[in-house]
């Protein structure tokens, strides 16, 4: 594969790449994968909350794409198909892990102790200076927690819009609801996050989260 071919593939739309892959061009799939695996992984990760599970699901999503390539029609938008698969897998996973309990980093290491060491203190370090690191880590945790606390529908809309950059119309198609509903959910999600992170807003401007 020459450089020219690679550039040509880079310029193709998702649908064109998918069609090329269906016709036997494995490099087209590689472009698709590099383009979408990161946002899909983070979409899944924010949904299920466990990195290893997110990677497994990411793998499953793209394996299904590979298997379904033969039946893919160009009329369907690739990202709609991709995120529909990802979302369905996330929903299934959430159902399976319904009774899964999150372990809070604020939870004491030893049960019963109220002022002893906390789990958060044991997280591996190696980043910036202690103050900024502490602030950055705390902010990151709060942000993650704020996302996790969103209602499922709001979180899905927020993640698809922010991480995948999908337009509201497409999100509505994926979720099977009217576009206005999607916009409302987006607004509620932004309001909720703003409320949760109000105290960090000024700080966020100054601190780079690592």
């Amino acid at each position, binding site marked *: 594969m020459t450089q020219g071919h690679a550039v040509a593939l880079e310029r193709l739309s998702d649908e064109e790449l998918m069609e090329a892959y*269906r016709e036997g061009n494995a490099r087209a*799939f590689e472009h698709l*994968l590099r383009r979408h*695996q990161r946002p899909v992984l983070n979409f899944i990760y924010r949904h299920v909350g466990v990195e290893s599970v997110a990677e497994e699901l990411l793998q499953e999503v793209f394996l299904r794409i590979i298997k379904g390539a033969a039946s893919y029609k160009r009329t369907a938008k690739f990202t709609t198909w991709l995120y529909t698969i990802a979302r369905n897998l996330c929903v299934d996973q959430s159902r399976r892990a319904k009774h899964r309990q999150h372990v809070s980093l604020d939870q004491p290491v030893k049960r019963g102790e109220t002022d002893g060491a906390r789990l958060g203190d044991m997280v591996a370090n190696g980043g910036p200076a202690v103050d900024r690191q502490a602030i950055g880590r705390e902010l*990151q945790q709060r942000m993650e927690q704020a996302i996790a606390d969103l209602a499922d529908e709001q979180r899905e809309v927020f993640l698809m819009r922010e991480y995948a950059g999908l337009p509201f119309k497409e999100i509505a198609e994926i979720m099977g609801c009217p576009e206005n509903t999607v916009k409302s959910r*987006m607004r509620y999600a932004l309001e909720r*996050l703003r409320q949760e992170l109000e105290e960090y807003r000024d700080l966020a401007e100054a601190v780079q989260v690592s």
Partner: protein
Amino acid sequence: MDCKHANEHLVDYLYQELDADEADRIEGHLRQCEGCSDELASFESTRRLMQKLPLLEPSPSVTELLLKEAARAVQPEAPGFWQRLRAGMRLLVLNPAMTAAAVLVLVLGVSFYAYRQTSPPPSDGELPVPDEIGEPAPVGGPAPATAAKAPQVAQTNLDRQEAKQQKEAEGRAGAAVGDKVVLAQPAREPAADMPKGKHALTLDGTRPKTVAKRRVGRRPAARAKPRPTLRYRKGPKRANEAFDDLDSNALGALGGGGGKRDGHKKSGKLASGTESAPRPAPAPAAQAEEKERSSAASAWLAQARKASKVGKCEQALRLYHRALEEDPGLRRTVGPEVRRCAARIGLDGLAKAQKQLPLLAGWLEAEMSEARRREANQQRAARKKAKPAKPKAVPQAPAQRRSYSSPSAD
């Protein structure tokens, strides 16, 4: 534009999903309305903050696995042996007509092959007549058709055609006096030796003395001691017994000449006292002798079949015996034919033949017991016929019948 309308489209404006005119109108309102402007600023700030959240990076191993899988999925691969076999089986399973046709072809093919291998002579004229028997009385040297050749049917047919032609050509070379036909040497022997060939015999089963002497002289070990009876497995035939011959023939063909003999040795079902220890690499002279013997056996066999065809069953049995002396491997082939001949010579003939033909003793004994059984049945039937018919049973007395009726009926 009022604040309500602006608020409704604030999210669209934030994510740039408005057309240019609508976006201009919102911007105009935002310049005038501090509340809506602050609202938008807070959302933008929240977005910026959330965008600072680090993203997970996909694991390279997952990427690699997916790329491999993707490449494999679109790689055109030639169907392997098992794929093709599976496809063929699927075709058969899905199409019952094809399955039936395949089974039919297989059964017909195997049956035909087995039939050509055994080629039994007809006992009652209903069975097809083999080529050798359909010929006029052969007086020339018959060529070995199947004995030491490869088992392919085509080859056998070729051999038969050759033998036919040779018989026609040499038909008048042999001497025929009355019903005594002298067999010439097998086709591969020189024509000059034909009348005095070592396999010469008369149709009544006696061997010319000079020939017998010559045989004794050439193979003293084979003639010095009496030929022991071959032990033959009795009992019902296995369903796949016909395949034993095919296998032995195939083995024989692989091992060179004398296929049937070698095959039977390997199968271990026939124990012959005359069979010497296995010879891994027979000398050329021994090979030639073996070939000669199997040719002679074929000649005897052809004569036996002819005699059987014309109804000379006792004579046919003697000829079968000769053939077996030459090639014990023919036992499976001639078994049914011997039984058919034996069934037609009566008990006395059987008893006589059993004494004279030790190699056929097993079949003859079986046939004798069968004949005795038949005879006993016939006698029993005759006795039954001879007895006067019993008077018909008297109808039951009313008193006996009443015993089964209900007491209230009385």
